[in-house]
């Protein structure tokens, strides 16, 4: 009996060493209002893993339902019982703030495919935390820069009252040279903007900047179009991504928005990504899908060089970021956030499908305002 047990445990030891799998924990939003974003990140990520042809990577996917408490439970489970090496997937900044600091302190690597709260880019930065998308302020800073170029002098700005909303308005104000006609924090998940629209109408603004991701943006744009206000609108890509443009319809046509990615960025990786995503899932990819795809490719490039169990080597491999990004050149700044070009896009209609077209560059080789505060 004793012998048998010994043999069994030896065999199981052998088995674990033979299958030195890399375990990736993905916590993302797959149900409820924000599900479209999480689905795109997941699909983009899995597409890259599948294309790599590696079968030694196991991705554990869980749905956080956009609730911080559930995200924390899932992350505890992934770290303690699933023993994942790398985590990724979180869409919302308030969830990232609840999960990421604890995860990276337990020696797990976290690659953010979306949320980039300022707290994790500055003083709270960590050597095991990498953001593959952007620091939250970035696209809003670009929107501010674009508003200057477009000659706007007085903006009315609004965003939901949560970490990314504060980052959004801060980012816009950092680059916008004009005055503010008004500044509103709405509720997260709010769907009726009649009160805010009345305030915009009563103000003397010459432009409107808004950051309302997901369903919030659909509601806002439809109601804006119906309100009779005809001020130009500027916003980050989040309310104009492929997933929701169809639900907004004509109300979004012609609106300028800022993004680090678009399907018409001209490089072979991006072309192949757009085509294969369409072929695999039957829809156009959004910027979230591109971020998921880039995140997986970053991970794959690092795994080529080192194993996550060798933390220092793996970290260096991640920092080098030697992979073909859908955005073209990709590099990390000192705080592990991207340094990248951000474009201005315009919403157009291609046949029956609403989509975006790049009309210019808003900011080039743009880093973020918090990098200097990061000491790692």
């Amino acid at each position, binding site marked *: 009996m004793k012998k048998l047990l010994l043999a069994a445990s030896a065999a199981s030891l052998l088995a674990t060493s033979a299958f030195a799998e890399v375990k990736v924990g993905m916590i993302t939003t*797959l*149900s*409820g*209002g924000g*599900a*479209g974003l999480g*689905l795109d990140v997941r699909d983009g990520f899995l597409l890259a893993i599948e294309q790599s042809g590696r079968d030694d990577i196991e991705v554990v996917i869980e749905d956080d339902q956009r609730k911080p408490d559930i995200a924390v439970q899932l992350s505890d489970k992934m770290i303690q019982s699933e023993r994942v090496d790398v985590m990724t997937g979180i869409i919302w900044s308030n969830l990232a703030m609840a999960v990421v600091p604890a995860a990276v302190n337990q020696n797990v690597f976290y690659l953010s495919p979306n949320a980039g709260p300022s707290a994790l880019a500055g003083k709270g930065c960590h050597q095991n935390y990498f953001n593959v998308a952007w620091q939250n302020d970035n696209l809003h800073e670009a929107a501010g820069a674009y508003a200057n170029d477009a000659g706007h002098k007085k903006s009315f700005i609004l965003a939901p*009252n949560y970490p990314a909303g*504060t980052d959004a308005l801060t980012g816009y104000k950092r680059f916008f040279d004009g005055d503010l006609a008004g*500044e*509103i*924090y*709405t*509720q997260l*998940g709010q*769907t*009726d903007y*009649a*009160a805010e629209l*009345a*305030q915009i*109408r*009563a103000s003397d603004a010459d432009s409107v900047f808004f950051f309302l991701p997901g*369903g*919030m943006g*659909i*509601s806002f744009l*439809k*109601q804006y179009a*119906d*309100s*009779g206000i005809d001020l130009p609108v500027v916003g980050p890509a989040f309310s104009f991504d492929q*997933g*929701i443009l*169809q*639900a*907004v*319809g004509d109300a979004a046509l012609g609106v300028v928005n800022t993004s680090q990615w678009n399907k018409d960025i001209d490089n072979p990786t991006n072309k192949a990504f757009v085509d294969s995503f369409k072929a695999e899932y039957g829809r156009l990819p959004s910027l979230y899908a591109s971020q998921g795809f880039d995140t997986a490719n970053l991970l794959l490039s690092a795994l080529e060089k080192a194993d996550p169990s060798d933390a220092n080597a793996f970290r260096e491999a991640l920092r080098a970021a030697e992979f073909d990004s859908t955005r073209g050149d990709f590099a990390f700044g000192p705080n592990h956030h991207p340094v990248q070009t951000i474009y201005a896009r315009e919403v157009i209609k291609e046949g029956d499908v609403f989509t975006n077209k790049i009309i210019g560059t808003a900011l080039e080789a743009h880093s973020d305002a918090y990098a200097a505060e990061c000491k790692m």
Partner: protein
Amino acid sequence: MSSILIVEQILNGLQFGVMLFLMAAGLTLIFGVMGLINLAHGSLYMVGAFAAAAVAGATGSFFLGLVAALASAALAGAIIEIVVIRRLYDAPHLDQVLATFALILIFSEGTRWFFGSFPLFLNIPQALSGPVTLPGGIEYPLYRLSLIVIGVAIAGGLWLFIERTRIGIQIRAGENDREMIAVLGVDISKLYTLVFALGAALAGLAGALVGAIQSVQVGMGEPVLILAFVVIVIGGIGSIRGAFIGALLVGLTDTLGGVFLPEFLGLFMEPGAAQKSGSAIASMGIYILMGLVLIWRPTGLFGARA
């Protein structure tokens, strides 16, 4: 702060209020008549919106979409009453909450399975789009104005139905004493199905009407459901009149509080901080209102029993 802005915000509050009433009316009838806490009421709202979006998308007619919303929500309501709810009338409230919560999950995932995770497109009809100019130079979206008119008309119709028709009398009698009207020869189970389908149809109609200016997506009903519960607690459980007054109170408090509280705090605070704390306090406004009403009248404004 101009008077035009104030009037416009009051209209916004009224519009929000009458839409809440459509939700709350069904909820309060179901609770009042059957003593059932129906958490799945928000799912019926979602069913209405999705049916309207699908039919309006296929036929191009918003009106047909509304008809589809009413019909499908009523049908869904009748089906869940017969299949699930009927077994729960004598069960404790906790069992009802558990079962109807399960219905929320089933409806949400079922809708996602059928329509996908991305929001659907439902736009307001051409004839009602754009703003109109009201006396006094107020520009206001015609569609929102129509929502107020529709909501008030339905409230009036519902009041007549409950107060003046035979079925209405049976419903009111059912609220007072279930056993007695069963003994008097009223088919109580048919009456329950009818009330449930009626409540569901109103929720579905609200979903379709509101879905046209918001986004039609899975989970859209739950935030409204919470507000509808606040409304019926304020108005008094089982009272249509209470639901109407409560809905308007909640709509106005929420809208006006959200606009004027940050302005007010801005008088003696730095603007950014005033905005943030103002909107945070304003989101508590309706719950504070509910607390005050319950201290003053523990059964709600028009409630007969606790």
